[in-house]
Protein backbone atom coordinates (compact mmCIF):
# COMPACT_ATOMS: atom_id res chain seq x y z
CA UNK A 1 0.00 0.00 0.00
CA UNK A 2 2.76 2.40 0.99
CA UNK A 3 4.66 1.59 -2.21
CA UNK A 4 1.56 2.27 -4.28
CA UNK A 5 1.04 5.57 -2.54
CA UNK A 6 4.62 6.56 -3.15
CA UNK A 7 4.24 5.64 -6.79
CA UNK A 8 1.13 7.76 -7.04
CA UNK A 9 2.93 10.74 -5.51
CA UNK A 10 5.81 10.31 -7.95
CA UNK A 11 3.38 10.07 -10.86
CA UNK A 12 1.52 13.15 -9.71
CA UNK A 13 4.71 15.12 -9.23
CA UNK A 14 5.87 13.87 -12.59
CA UNK A 15 2.75 15.08 -14.31
CA UNK A 16 3.08 18.43 -12.56
CA UNK A 17 6.66 18.72 -13.78
CA UNK A 18 5.48 17.96 -17.30
CA UNK A 19 2.98 20.80 -17.25
CA UNK A 20 5.27 22.79 -19.54
CA UNK A 21 7.11 21.55 -22.50
CA UNK A 22 10.18 23.14 -24.08
CA UNK A 23 10.58 23.12 -27.82
CA UNK A 24 14.00 24.28 -28.98
CA UNK A 25 16.18 24.32 -32.05
CA UNK A 26 19.57 25.71 -33.05
CA UNK A 27 20.08 27.60 -36.28
CA UNK A 28 22.70 25.15 -37.49
CA UNK A 29 23.27 21.59 -36.27
CA UNK A 30 26.53 21.19 -38.11
CA UNK A 31 29.07 24.00 -38.02
CA UNK A 32 31.93 23.55 -40.47
CA UNK A 33 35.37 24.96 -39.79
CA UNK A 34 36.91 25.95 -43.11
CA UNK A 35 40.48 27.27 -43.61
CA UNK A 36 39.27 30.86 -43.33
CA UNK A 37 36.94 30.27 -40.38
CA UNK A 38 37.14 33.16 -37.94
CA UNK A 39 34.33 32.39 -35.50
CA UNK A 40 30.59 32.65 -35.82
CA UNK A 41 27.42 32.80 -33.77
CA UNK A 42 24.72 30.17 -33.61
CA UNK A 43 21.19 31.07 -32.59
CA UNK A 44 19.13 28.93 -30.25
CA UNK A 45 15.43 29.62 -30.23
CA UNK A 46 12.41 27.92 -28.75
CA UNK A 47 9.14 28.27 -26.96
CA UNK A 48 7.47 27.18 -23.76
CA UNK A 49 4.37 25.11 -24.50
CA UNK A 50 1.74 25.07 -21.79
CA UNK A 51 -0.98 22.51 -21.40
CA UNK A 52 -4.15 22.14 -19.36
CA UNK A 53 -2.32 21.20 -16.15
CA UNK A 54 -0.21 24.35 -16.12
CA UNK A 55 -1.10 26.44 -13.08
CA UNK A 56 -2.89 29.55 -14.25
CA UNK A 57 -0.82 31.89 -12.08
CA UNK A 58 2.40 30.82 -13.80
CA UNK A 59 3.24 33.51 -16.30
CA UNK A 60 6.86 34.60 -15.79
CA UNK A 61 9.54 32.07 -16.72
CA UNK A 62 13.29 32.07 -16.34
CA UNK A 63 15.61 30.23 -18.63
CA UNK A 64 19.16 28.95 -18.23
CA UNK A 65 21.01 27.61 -21.27
CA UNK A 66 24.19 25.57 -20.80
CA UNK A 67 26.38 24.78 -23.82
CA UNK A 68 29.11 22.20 -23.28
CA UNK A 69 31.78 21.31 -25.81
CA UNK A 70 33.66 18.00 -26.07
CA UNK A 71 35.26 16.95 -22.81
CA UNK A 72 39.00 16.66 -22.30
CA UNK A 73 41.59 16.32 -19.54
CA UNK A 74 43.45 19.54 -18.89
CA UNK A 75 46.38 20.52 -16.73
CA UNK A 76 46.68 23.92 -15.08
CA UNK A 77 50.19 24.82 -14.02
CA UNK A 78 51.41 27.60 -11.77
CA UNK A 79 54.73 29.37 -12.20
CA UNK A 80 56.81 30.28 -9.20
CA UNK A 81 60.05 32.15 -8.84
CA UNK A 82 62.87 29.66 -8.32
CA UNK A 83 66.54 30.67 -8.48
CA UNK A 84 65.50 34.00 -9.99
CA UNK A 85 63.55 32.58 -12.90
CA UNK A 86 59.89 31.69 -13.31
CA UNK A 87 59.34 27.96 -13.46
CA UNK A 88 56.21 25.79 -13.59
CA UNK A 89 56.04 24.19 -10.17
CA UNK A 90 52.63 23.13 -8.85
CA UNK A 91 49.88 21.76 -11.08
CA UNK A 92 46.34 20.37 -10.98
CA UNK A 93 44.75 18.00 -13.41
CA UNK A 94 41.15 18.67 -14.43
CA UNK A 95 39.43 15.49 -15.53
CA UNK A 96 36.98 15.35 -18.42
CA UNK A 97 36.03 19.01 -18.23
CA UNK A 98 34.21 20.72 -21.12
CA UNK A 99 36.57 22.34 -23.62
CA UNK A 100 33.87 24.91 -24.32
CA UNK A 101 31.37 26.04 -21.71
CA UNK A 102 28.76 28.76 -21.94
CA UNK A 103 25.98 29.62 -19.53
CA UNK A 104 23.26 32.01 -20.59
CA UNK A 105 20.18 33.25 -18.78
CA UNK A 106 17.57 35.96 -19.07
CA UNK A 107 18.46 37.56 -15.73
CA UNK A 108 21.16 37.18 -13.05
CA UNK A 109 21.49 33.59 -11.83
CA UNK A 110 20.95 34.55 -8.18
CA UNK A 111 17.66 36.23 -9.10
CA UNK A 112 16.41 33.12 -10.88
CA UNK A 113 16.81 30.59 -8.13
CA UNK A 114 18.20 29.91 -4.66
CA UNK A 115 21.94 29.24 -4.16
CA UNK A 116 21.09 25.68 -3.13
CA UNK A 117 19.27 24.85 -6.38
CA UNK A 118 21.84 26.75 -8.43
CA UNK A 119 24.56 24.54 -6.98
CA UNK A 120 22.61 21.35 -7.57
CA UNK A 121 21.65 22.29 -11.13
CA UNK A 122 25.16 23.64 -11.88
CA UNK A 123 23.94 27.14 -12.72
CA UNK A 124 26.80 29.63 -13.18
CA UNK A 125 30.51 29.05 -13.80
CA UNK A 126 31.10 28.87 -10.04
CA UNK A 127 28.69 25.97 -9.74
CA UNK A 128 29.65 23.89 -12.74
CA UNK A 129 31.33 20.68 -11.71
CA UNK A 130 35.00 20.70 -12.67
CA UNK A 131 36.52 17.51 -11.33
CA UNK A 132 40.13 17.74 -10.24
CA UNK A 133 42.57 15.08 -9.27
CA UNK A 134 43.92 16.16 -5.90
CA UNK A 135 46.62 13.72 -4.83
CA UNK A 136 44.76 10.58 -5.87
CA UNK A 137 41.32 11.87 -4.95
CA UNK A 138 38.73 12.98 -7.46
CA UNK A 139 36.68 15.97 -6.43
CA UNK A 140 35.66 19.46 -7.26
CA UNK A 141 36.95 22.11 -4.90
CA UNK A 142 35.62 25.37 -3.52
CA UNK A 143 34.85 27.98 -6.22
CA UNK A 144 37.59 30.35 -5.01
CA UNK A 145 40.35 27.73 -5.27
CA UNK A 146 43.36 29.34 -6.98
CA UNK A 147 43.71 26.70 -9.69
CA UNK A 148 39.98 26.50 -10.38
CA UNK A 149 39.55 30.25 -10.72
CA UNK A 150 42.71 30.57 -12.83
CA UNK A 151 41.42 27.80 -15.06
CA UNK A 152 38.09 29.54 -15.58
CA UNK A 153 39.76 32.93 -16.03
CA UNK A 154 42.15 31.62 -18.74
CA UNK A 155 39.40 29.79 -20.60
CA UNK A 156 37.23 32.93 -20.40
CA UNK A 157 40.05 35.05 -21.82
CA UNK A 158 40.19 32.79 -24.85
CA UNK A 159 36.43 33.07 -25.28
CA UNK A 160 35.95 29.37 -24.55
CA UNK A 161 34.20 29.76 -21.19
CA UNK A 162 31.59 32.41 -20.73
CA UNK A 163 28.55 33.29 -18.69
CA UNK A 164 26.09 35.96 -19.67
CA UNK A 165 22.98 36.43 -17.52
CA UNK A 166 21.35 38.69 -20.10
CA UNK A 167 21.92 36.72 -23.30
CA UNK A 168 18.54 35.03 -23.33
CA UNK A 169 15.71 37.26 -24.50
CA UNK A 170 12.02 36.49 -24.25
CA UNK A 171 10.38 37.79 -27.40
CA UNK A 172 6.96 36.99 -25.99
CA UNK A 173 6.31 35.56 -22.49
CA UNK A 174 6.83 32.08 -23.97
CA UNK A 175 9.05 32.62 -27.02
CA UNK A 176 12.79 32.97 -26.41
CA UNK A 177 16.10 33.14 -28.23
CA UNK A 178 19.79 33.34 -27.42
CA UNK A 179 23.03 33.61 -29.39
CA UNK A 180 25.83 31.06 -28.90
CA UNK A 181 29.11 32.75 -29.87
CA UNK A 182 31.78 30.36 -31.15
CA UNK A 183 35.31 31.83 -31.23
CA UNK A 184 37.83 31.15 -34.00
CA UNK A 185 39.73 28.55 -31.98
CA UNK A 186 36.60 26.60 -31.06
CA UNK A 187 37.26 22.91 -30.25
CA UNK A 188 36.01 20.33 -32.72
CA UNK A 189 33.36 17.83 -31.63
CA UNK A 190 29.85 17.38 -30.34
CA UNK A 191 28.31 20.16 -28.28
CA UNK A 192 25.52 19.49 -25.82
CA UNK A 193 22.98 22.19 -25.13
CA UNK A 194 20.87 21.94 -21.99
CA UNK A 195 17.93 24.27 -21.53
CA UNK A 196 16.41 24.55 -18.05
CA UNK A 197 13.13 26.32 -17.38
CA UNK A 198 12.51 27.88 -13.99
CA UNK A 199 9.37 29.39 -12.52
CA UNK A 200 9.28 31.06 -9.11
CA UNK A 201 12.77 29.79 -8.34
CA UNK A 202 11.99 26.13 -9.00
CA UNK A 203 13.08 23.96 -11.91
CA UNK A 204 10.00 23.27 -14.02
CA UNK A 205 11.34 21.28 -16.89
CA UNK A 206 14.41 20.84 -19.02
CA UNK A 207 15.34 19.65 -22.47
CA UNK A 208 18.45 18.97 -24.46
CA UNK A 209 19.69 19.45 -27.98
CA UNK A 210 23.08 19.22 -29.63
CA UNK A 211 25.14 20.49 -32.49
CA UNK A 212 28.39 19.42 -34.02
CA UNK A 213 31.49 21.32 -35.05
CA UNK A 214 33.51 19.67 -37.78
CA UNK A 215 36.57 20.57 -39.78
CA UNK A 216 36.03 20.07 -43.49
CA UNK A 217 38.11 19.74 -46.62
CA UNK A 218 41.86 20.11 -46.58
CA UNK A 219 41.82 21.19 -42.93
CA UNK A 220 40.15 18.03 -41.74
CA UNK A 221 42.34 15.91 -43.95
CA UNK A 222 45.60 17.38 -42.62
CA UNK A 223 44.53 17.23 -38.98
CA UNK A 224 43.31 13.62 -39.10
CA UNK A 225 46.27 12.37 -41.10
CA UNK A 226 48.67 14.00 -38.65
CA UNK A 227 47.01 12.29 -35.68
CA UNK A 228 46.26 8.89 -37.20
CA UNK A 229 49.09 8.29 -39.65
CA UNK A 230 51.96 10.23 -38.11
CA UNK A 231 54.58 8.39 -40.10
CA UNK A 232 52.91 8.94 -43.49
CA UNK A 233 52.26 12.55 -42.58
CA UNK A 234 55.91 13.00 -41.63
CA UNK A 235 57.04 11.44 -44.91
CA UNK A 236 54.73 13.74 -46.87
CA UNK A 237 56.03 16.79 -45.01
CA UNK A 238 59.62 15.70 -45.64
CA UNK A 239 58.86 15.18 -49.35
CA UNK A 240 57.26 18.62 -49.47
CA UNK A 241 60.31 20.21 -47.85
CA UNK A 242 62.66 18.50 -50.32
CA UNK A 243 60.50 19.53 -53.29
CA UNK A 244 60.39 23.16 -52.17
CA UNK A 245 64.14 23.23 -51.61
CA UNK A 246 64.85 21.59 -54.95
CA UNK A 247 62.53 23.93 -56.83
CA UNK A 248 64.12 26.95 -55.19
CA UNK A 249 67.58 25.81 -56.25
CA UNK A 250 66.33 25.44 -59.86
CA UNK A 251 64.41 28.72 -59.97
CA UNK A 252 67.20 30.79 -58.48
CA UNK A 253 70.09 29.01 -60.17
CA UNK A 254 72.69 31.58 -61.10
CA UNK A 255 74.19 30.48 -64.39
Amino acid at each position, binding site marked *: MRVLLALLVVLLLGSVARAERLIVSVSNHRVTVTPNYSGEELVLFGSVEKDATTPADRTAYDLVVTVMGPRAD*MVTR*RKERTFGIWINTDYRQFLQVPSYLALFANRPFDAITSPEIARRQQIGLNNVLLTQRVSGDFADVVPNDAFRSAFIRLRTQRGLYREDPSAVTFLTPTLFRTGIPLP*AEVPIGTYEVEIKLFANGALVTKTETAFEIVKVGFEQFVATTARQNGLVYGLATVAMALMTGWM*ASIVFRKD
Partner: protein
Amino acid sequence: MQLYLPIADLPVNVFLVLAMGAAVGFVSGMFGIGGGFLMTPLLIFIGITPAVAVASVASHIAASSFSGALTYWRRRAIDPALASVLLSGGVTGTALGVWTFTQLRALGQLDLMIALSYVVLLTTVGSLMFLEGLRALMRTRRGAVPPRRQHNWIHGLPLKMRFKRSKIYLSVIPVLIVGTLIGFIGAIMGIGGGFILVPIMIYLLRVPTSTVIGTSMVLTLVTMLVATMLHAATNHLVDAVLALILMVGGVTGAQFGARAGQKIRGEQLRLLLGLLILSVGVRFAVELVIRPDDLFTIRELGVSS
Protein backbone atom coordinates in the same frame (compact mmCIF):
# COMPACT_ATOMS: atom_id res chain seq x y z
CA MET B 1 44.06 36.83 -45.63
CA GLN B 2 43.38 34.57 -42.65
CA LEU B 3 44.28 30.92 -42.82
CA TYR B 4 43.46 28.32 -40.21
CA LEU B 5 46.48 26.21 -39.24
CA PRO B 6 45.27 22.63 -38.72
CA ILE B 7 47.81 21.46 -36.13
CA ALA B 8 48.55 24.73 -34.36
CA ASP B 9 44.72 25.13 -34.15
CA LEU B 10 44.97 28.81 -34.73
CA PRO B 11 44.04 31.26 -37.48
CA VAL B 12 46.98 33.29 -38.77
CA ASN B 13 47.49 35.96 -41.39
CA VAL B 14 49.16 34.30 -44.39
CA PHE B 15 51.03 37.44 -45.41
CA LEU B 16 52.42 37.93 -41.92
CA VAL B 17 53.83 34.40 -41.84
CA LEU B 18 55.07 34.74 -45.42
CA ALA B 19 56.82 38.01 -44.51
CA MET B 20 58.37 36.40 -41.42
CA GLY B 21 59.62 33.54 -43.58
CA ALA B 22 61.09 35.98 -46.09
CA ALA B 23 62.74 38.14 -43.41
CA VAL B 24 64.34 35.15 -41.69
CA GLY B 25 65.25 33.74 -45.11
CA PHE B 26 67.00 37.02 -45.95
CA VAL B 27 69.07 36.85 -42.76
CA SER B 28 69.84 33.17 -43.28
CA GLY B 29 70.93 33.75 -46.88
CA MET B 30 73.10 36.66 -45.81
CA PHE B 31 74.95 34.75 -43.11
CA GLY B 32 74.74 31.27 -44.62
CA ILE B 33 72.81 29.81 -41.67
CA GLY B 34 69.47 28.02 -41.36
CA GLY B 35 67.77 30.74 -39.35
CA GLY B 36 65.88 28.40 -37.06
CA PHE B 37 67.03 30.32 -33.98
CA LEU B 38 65.14 33.36 -35.32
CA MET B 39 62.14 31.58 -36.81
CA THR B 40 61.16 29.55 -33.72
CA PRO B 41 61.06 32.60 -31.37
CA LEU B 42 59.09 34.60 -33.97
CA LEU B 43 56.48 31.86 -34.24
CA ILE B 44 56.22 31.64 -30.45
CA PHE B 45 55.79 35.41 -30.42
CA ILE B 46 52.72 35.30 -32.74
CA GLY B 47 51.03 32.81 -30.43
CA ILE B 48 52.02 29.39 -31.74
CA THR B 49 52.91 27.05 -28.87
CA PRO B 50 56.67 26.42 -28.51
CA ALA B 51 56.16 22.70 -29.14
CA VAL B 52 54.42 23.19 -32.51
CA ALA B 53 56.87 25.95 -33.47
CA VAL B 54 59.93 23.76 -32.82
CA ALA B 55 58.47 20.80 -34.73
CA SER B 56 57.28 22.81 -37.74
CA VAL B 57 60.44 24.88 -38.10
CA ALA B 58 62.39 21.63 -38.48
CA SER B 59 60.77 20.96 -41.86
CA HIS B 60 61.23 24.61 -42.87
CA ILE B 61 64.98 24.38 -42.19
CA ALA B 62 65.14 21.08 -44.09
CA ALA B 63 63.78 22.85 -47.19
CA SER B 64 66.16 25.79 -47.06
CA SER B 65 69.21 23.67 -46.29
CA PHE B 66 68.34 21.29 -49.14
CA SER B 67 68.32 24.11 -51.68
CA GLY B 68 71.63 25.33 -50.21
CA ALA B 69 73.17 21.87 -50.16
CA LEU B 70 72.29 21.32 -53.84
CA THR B 71 74.11 24.49 -54.80
CA TYR B 72 77.20 23.50 -52.77
CA TRP B 73 77.11 19.98 -54.21
CA ARG B 74 77.31 21.37 -57.74
CA ARG B 75 80.34 23.42 -56.67
CA ARG B 76 81.90 20.28 -55.15
CA ALA B 77 82.04 22.08 -51.77
CA ILE B 78 80.73 19.14 -49.72
CA ASP B 79 82.96 16.53 -48.13
CA PRO B 80 80.94 13.27 -48.34
CA ALA B 81 83.19 11.37 -45.91
CA LEU B 82 83.10 14.08 -43.26
CA ALA B 83 79.35 14.53 -43.77
CA SER B 84 78.62 10.83 -43.24
CA VAL B 85 80.64 10.65 -40.00
CA LEU B 86 78.88 13.79 -38.73
CA LEU B 87 75.56 12.29 -39.77
CA SER B 88 75.91 9.03 -37.88
CA GLY B 89 76.37 11.16 -34.76
CA GLY B 90 73.66 13.60 -35.82
CA VAL B 91 70.92 11.02 -36.31
CA THR B 92 71.58 9.50 -32.87
CA GLY B 93 71.52 12.95 -31.32
CA THR B 94 68.24 13.85 -33.02
CA ALA B 95 66.52 10.68 -31.84
CA LEU B 96 67.73 11.39 -28.29
CA GLY B 97 66.57 14.99 -28.63
CA VAL B 98 63.04 14.10 -29.75
CA TRP B 99 62.79 11.54 -26.94
CA THR B 100 63.86 14.16 -24.37
CA PHE B 101 61.41 16.63 -25.94
CA THR B 102 58.53 14.17 -25.38
CA GLN B 103 59.58 13.53 -21.77
CA LEU B 104 59.90 17.24 -20.96
CA ARG B 105 56.52 17.93 -22.53
CA ALA B 106 54.89 15.35 -20.27
CA LEU B 107 56.57 16.95 -17.26
CA GLY B 108 55.37 20.42 -18.24
CA GLN B 109 58.90 21.79 -18.39
CA LEU B 110 59.32 21.88 -22.17
CA ASP B 111 58.73 25.61 -22.57
CA LEU B 112 61.18 26.35 -19.79
CA MET B 113 63.82 24.08 -21.28
CA ILE B 114 63.41 25.64 -24.72
CA ALA B 115 63.76 29.12 -23.21
CA LEU B 116 66.74 28.14 -21.02
CA SER B 117 68.60 26.48 -23.89
CA TYR B 118 68.04 29.57 -26.00
CA VAL B 119 69.43 31.81 -23.28
CA VAL B 120 72.53 29.70 -22.57
CA LEU B 121 73.37 28.81 -26.14
CA LEU B 122 72.59 32.09 -27.86
CA THR B 123 74.22 34.39 -25.33
CA THR B 124 77.38 32.24 -25.29
CA VAL B 125 77.69 31.76 -29.03
CA GLY B 126 76.56 35.32 -29.73
CA SER B 127 79.11 36.96 -27.46
CA LEU B 128 81.94 34.68 -28.65
CA MET B 129 81.13 35.47 -32.25
CA PHE B 130 80.80 39.17 -31.54
CA LEU B 131 84.16 39.32 -29.74
CA GLU B 132 85.85 37.28 -32.46
CA GLY B 133 84.43 39.57 -35.14
CA LEU B 134 85.60 42.60 -33.18
CA ARG B 135 89.12 41.19 -32.83
CA ALA B 136 89.29 40.32 -36.53
CA LEU B 137 88.07 43.79 -37.45
CA MET B 138 90.74 45.40 -35.28
CA ARG B 139 93.43 43.15 -36.76
CA THR B 140 92.56 44.18 -40.31
CA ARG B 141 92.52 47.82 -39.20
CA ARG B 142 96.06 47.45 -37.88
CA GLY B 143 96.96 45.47 -40.98
CA ALA B 144 98.26 42.55 -38.94
CA VAL B 145 98.49 39.03 -40.38
CA PRO B 146 95.99 36.56 -38.87
CA PRO B 147 97.77 34.04 -36.61
CA ARG B 148 98.78 30.79 -38.25
CA ARG B 149 96.54 27.83 -37.57
CA GLN B 150 97.97 25.46 -35.05
CA HIS B 151 97.09 21.90 -34.17
CA ASN B 152 95.30 21.51 -30.85
CA TRP B 153 94.63 18.63 -28.45
CA ILE B 154 91.78 17.34 -30.64
CA HIS B 155 94.31 16.31 -33.25
CA GLY B 156 95.99 14.02 -30.74
CA LEU B 157 92.93 11.73 -30.39
CA PRO B 158 92.99 8.16 -31.74
CA LEU B 159 90.86 6.59 -34.54
CA LYS B 160 92.11 8.96 -37.18
CA MET B 161 90.58 9.08 -40.61
CA ARG B 162 91.53 10.86 -43.81
CA PHE B 163 88.91 13.24 -45.23
CA LYS B 164 90.04 13.67 -48.82
CA ARG B 165 88.02 16.57 -50.09
CA SER B 166 88.65 18.67 -46.99
CA LYS B 167 92.33 17.61 -47.03
CA ILE B 168 92.40 16.90 -43.28
CA TYR B 169 93.49 13.95 -41.19
CA LEU B 170 91.32 13.82 -38.09
CA SER B 171 90.01 11.52 -35.36
CA VAL B 172 86.37 10.49 -35.80
CA ILE B 173 85.63 10.85 -32.06
CA PRO B 174 85.25 14.67 -31.95
CA VAL B 175 83.34 14.60 -35.25
CA LEU B 176 80.84 12.08 -33.86
CA ILE B 177 80.45 14.06 -30.62
CA VAL B 178 79.84 17.30 -32.51
CA GLY B 179 77.26 15.60 -34.76
CA THR B 180 75.39 14.12 -31.78
CA LEU B 181 75.40 17.45 -29.95
CA ILE B 182 74.03 19.39 -32.92
CA GLY B 183 71.35 16.77 -33.58
CA PHE B 184 70.28 16.81 -29.92
CA ILE B 185 69.96 20.57 -29.48
CA GLY B 186 68.44 20.91 -32.94
CA ALA B 187 65.56 18.58 -32.08
CA ILE B 188 64.86 20.29 -28.75
CA MET B 189 65.26 23.90 -29.82
CA GLY B 190 63.99 23.81 -33.40
CA ILE B 191 67.23 25.09 -34.87
CA GLY B 192 69.45 23.67 -37.59
CA GLY B 193 72.53 24.40 -35.54
CA GLY B 194 74.52 25.81 -38.48
CA PHE B 195 75.51 28.88 -36.51
CA ILE B 196 77.16 26.68 -33.86
CA LEU B 197 78.41 23.94 -36.16
CA VAL B 198 80.29 26.21 -38.57
CA PRO B 199 82.44 27.89 -35.88
CA ILE B 200 83.11 24.52 -34.20
CA MET B 201 84.22 23.00 -37.49
CA ILE B 202 86.45 25.95 -38.35
CA TYR B 203 88.06 26.63 -34.98
CA LEU B 204 88.07 23.21 -33.32
CA LEU B 205 88.20 20.66 -36.13
CA ARG B 206 90.18 22.93 -38.49
CA VAL B 207 88.03 22.06 -41.49
CA PRO B 208 88.93 24.37 -44.41
CA THR B 209 86.39 27.09 -45.20
CA SER B 210 85.90 25.71 -48.71
CA THR B 211 83.95 22.67 -47.51
CA VAL B 212 82.66 23.88 -44.15
CA ILE B 213 79.32 25.46 -45.07
CA GLY B 214 78.29 22.82 -47.62
CA THR B 215 79.11 19.96 -45.26
CA SER B 216 77.36 21.57 -42.31
CA MET B 217 74.29 22.06 -44.52
CA VAL B 218 74.17 18.33 -45.24
CA LEU B 219 74.17 17.62 -41.50
CA THR B 220 71.47 20.25 -40.93
CA LEU B 221 69.39 18.81 -43.77
CA VAL B 222 69.48 15.23 -42.54
CA THR B 223 69.02 15.99 -38.82
CA MET B 224 66.07 18.26 -39.62
CA LEU B 225 64.51 15.62 -41.89
CA VAL B 226 64.85 13.03 -39.12
CA ALA B 227 63.52 15.53 -36.56
CA THR B 228 60.48 16.26 -38.76
CA MET B 229 59.77 12.56 -39.13
CA LEU B 230 60.12 11.81 -35.43
CA HIS B 231 58.15 14.87 -34.29
CA ALA B 232 55.37 13.91 -36.73
CA ALA B 233 55.32 10.26 -35.70
CA THR B 234 55.60 10.62 -31.92
CA ASN B 235 54.22 14.03 -30.95
CA HIS B 236 51.95 14.86 -33.93
CA LEU B 237 53.08 18.45 -33.75
CA VAL B 238 54.30 19.26 -37.27
CA ASP B 239 52.01 21.78 -38.96
CA ALA B 240 52.55 21.17 -42.68
CA VAL B 241 50.49 24.20 -43.74
CA LEU B 242 52.54 26.51 -41.53
CA ALA B 243 55.76 24.86 -42.71
CA LEU B 244 54.85 25.30 -46.39
CA ILE B 245 54.19 29.04 -46.00
CA LEU B 246 57.47 29.43 -44.12
CA MET B 247 59.39 27.46 -46.76
CA VAL B 248 58.07 29.53 -49.67
CA GLY B 249 58.88 32.78 -47.87
CA GLY B 250 62.20 31.46 -46.61
CA VAL B 251 63.73 30.19 -49.85
CA THR B 252 62.77 33.40 -51.65
CA GLY B 253 64.18 35.66 -48.95
CA ALA B 254 67.38 33.60 -48.80
CA GLN B 255 68.24 34.40 -52.43
CA PHE B 256 68.14 38.15 -51.83
CA GLY B 257 69.96 37.73 -48.53
CA ALA B 258 72.78 35.84 -50.21
CA ARG B 259 73.26 38.69 -52.69
CA ALA B 260 73.27 41.27 -49.90
CA GLY B 261 75.74 39.17 -47.91
CA GLN B 262 78.32 39.21 -50.71
CA LYS B 263 78.56 43.00 -50.44
CA ILE B 264 79.55 42.93 -46.75
CA ARG B 265 83.02 41.98 -45.50
CA GLY B 266 83.45 38.71 -43.60
CA GLU B 267 84.43 40.25 -40.23
CA GLN B 268 81.55 42.72 -40.28
CA LEU B 269 79.21 39.89 -41.18
CA ARG B 270 80.37 37.86 -38.16
CA LEU B 271 80.04 40.91 -35.92
CA LEU B 272 76.47 41.49 -37.09
CA LEU B 273 75.52 37.84 -36.75
CA GLY B 274 77.03 37.74 -33.26
CA LEU B 275 74.96 40.78 -32.24
CA LEU B 276 71.81 39.26 -33.70
CA ILE B 277 72.26 35.94 -31.90
CA LEU B 278 73.13 37.71 -28.66
CA SER B 279 70.01 39.89 -28.78
CA VAL B 280 67.70 36.90 -29.30
CA GLY B 281 69.37 35.21 -26.31
CA VAL B 282 69.00 38.30 -24.13
CA ARG B 283 65.34 38.61 -25.07
CA PHE B 284 64.71 35.07 -23.83
CA ALA B 285 66.67 35.79 -20.63
CA VAL B 286 64.58 38.89 -19.88
CA GLU B 287 61.40 36.87 -20.38
CA LEU B 288 62.51 34.28 -17.83
CA VAL B 289 63.47 36.78 -15.18
CA ILE B 290 60.57 39.22 -15.26
CA ARG B 291 57.34 38.21 -13.60
CA PRO B 292 55.00 36.73 -16.26
CA ASP B 293 51.64 38.44 -16.86
CA ASP B 294 49.89 35.28 -15.85
CA LEU B 295 51.31 32.71 -13.48
CA PHE B 296 48.90 30.04 -14.67
CA THR B 297 48.87 28.10 -17.92
CA ILE B 298 46.53 25.42 -19.26
CA ARG B 299 47.40 22.50 -21.46
CA GLU B 300 44.89 20.12 -22.97
CA LEU B 301 45.77 16.45 -22.76
CA GLY B 302 43.82 15.46 -25.84
CA VAL B 303 40.09 15.53 -26.44
CA SER B 304 38.27 12.29 -25.83
CA SER B 305 34.80 12.99 -27.12
